[in-house]
């Protein structure tokens, strides 16, 4: 099952001793079940804040945020793999399964299957420190898939990787998405990546964070990263980001 996300009149203000900064000024957006949405924007546009709210990690917002169904299973993939360094690849995946009540044996078996799915079967018994950055991020992907999420939240998951590894993982992500059709919210500052992956690209501007454009990418899959039509979309997105920035500078 896929989850639906609705943000209505969402506002998030960070207050500290000296003052307040508006991370998200006013945001209305809904994600349909099974959709793949990318949010792009410069740093300070509140896109990571949005993801934290969607993940339930940040509850200090104003306005409305609804996740349907309320008990939807969600999984996160972060910029850093965030693996437990003292657990092997297999036990890192098993960790989230055990925490959800699977027996140890079940969790281990399932995690080996998932590691095989992301092409890491031979590395199951290795510790994260023995794996390359790309392999660690694959383990994190296997962990995210382990819970069979209704909603997959991704926060610049490929930006810390070299471009060759990142390209390969993007391809794998698309393949998994087409196979499972789960709702995905993907945050990135990489415009080309957003256009290549998503069906819909939401452009945010900074200071304060708000939506300046909502573009659907009407290209059939599989897409080729060097498709000139993708470059066209990217140019469009970039124009909106530039507009948003100059507007922000004036106000």
């Amino acid at each position, binding site marked *: 099952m896929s989850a639906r996300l609705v943000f209505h009149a969402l506002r998030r203000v960070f207050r500290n001793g000296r003052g307040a900064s508006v991370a998200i000024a006013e945001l209305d957006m809904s994600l349909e079940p099974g959709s793949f949405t990318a949010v792009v924007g410069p740093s300070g546009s509140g896109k990571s804040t949005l993801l934290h709210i969607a993940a339930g990690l940040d509850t200090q917002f104003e306005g409305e945020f609804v996740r349907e169904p309320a008990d939807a299973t*969600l999984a996160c993939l972060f910029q850093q793999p*965030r693996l*437990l360094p003292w657990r092997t690849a297999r036990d890192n995946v098993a*960790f989230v399964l055990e*925490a959800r009540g699977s027996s140890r044996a079940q969790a281990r078996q399932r995690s080996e299957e998932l590691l095989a799915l992301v092409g890491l*079967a031979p*590395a199951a018994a290795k510790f994260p420190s023995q794996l390359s950055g790309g*392999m660690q991020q694959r383990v994190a992907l296997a962990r995210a898939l382990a819970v069979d999420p209704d909603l997959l939240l991704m926060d610049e998951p490929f930006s810390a990787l070299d471009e060759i590894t990142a390209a390969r993982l993007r391809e794998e992500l698309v393949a998994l998405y087409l196979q499972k059709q789960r709702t995905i919210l993907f945050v990135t500052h990489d415009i080309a990546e957003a256009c290549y992956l998503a069906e819909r690209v939401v452009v945010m501007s900074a200071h304060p964070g708000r939506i300046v454009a909502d573009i659907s990418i009407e290209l059939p899959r599989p897409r080729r990263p060097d498709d000139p039509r993708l470059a066209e979309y990217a140019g469009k997105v970039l124009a909106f980001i530039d507009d948003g920035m100059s507007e922000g500078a004036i106000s």
Partner: protein
Amino acid sequence: MIVPEGEPADAARPPRAAYAGRAQAILYVVASLVLLALAWQGASFIVGADVLPGPVASVLAIRKSASDGYLWSDIAITAYRIAGAFGIALVVSIIAGVLLGRVRVAERLLGPWVTIGASVPSLVIIVVVYLAVGITDRAAMIGTALIVAPSMTFAVWDGMRAINPELQEMARAFAVPRFTIVRQVVLPQTIPFIFTAARTGLSLTWRIMIFVELLGRQSGVGYRIQYYYNLVDMSRVVAAALPFVALMLAFEFGVLRPLERYAFRWRRAEAR
């Protein structure tokens, strides 16, 4: 669609190279010990054997002490007191360190106490505890623990600051129950610092306990050192301390290090 990535080059060294490396390591340890014995002998020549007996004289004195019959009972009683003091200090410092590291109010209110505690002269603490508790083994343990605890608390406290909040955030995003997060995500991160605290704490405990025994006990290594010092029998003074030094070293290399290696095998992989 998903291409398996090649395994990273397995960095485990071939067995022959490993043996050679091990032999070399042992050679260095032996060389280091021989050099130390020579330096000791040299120092003994310079200041006089009656003030600082050489290694051979000291080892012979150990045999004399052993035949007197209290060598092993001294070691046993001192080891017992050290174990008690160390246990108290470890529990206190873990509780205090975790509290200071996790609770902001505790850090602000009680943090300075640790610094103050660390700067109170050991002698004052020992004397006060002996007077308050009575001149007993229990007082010796409590007094030593109080002296050792501040530096161990600092180590644990520092460790708590180094805990990575991103891992907790990850676990929360995956709806891992709170208690499981503490047990499986937070606690494992504190173990390296608890090891550091234990290691420095144990050697400090041993050195302090000798003083504490000297001041108020009628048995143990510290008492024996004072006894022979008063008789100006320096070879027996060294002979009293030497077996316990060996015991502490054996504990360090025989128990603590292997335990640490096992607990941090995931870290060793990193060093490769």
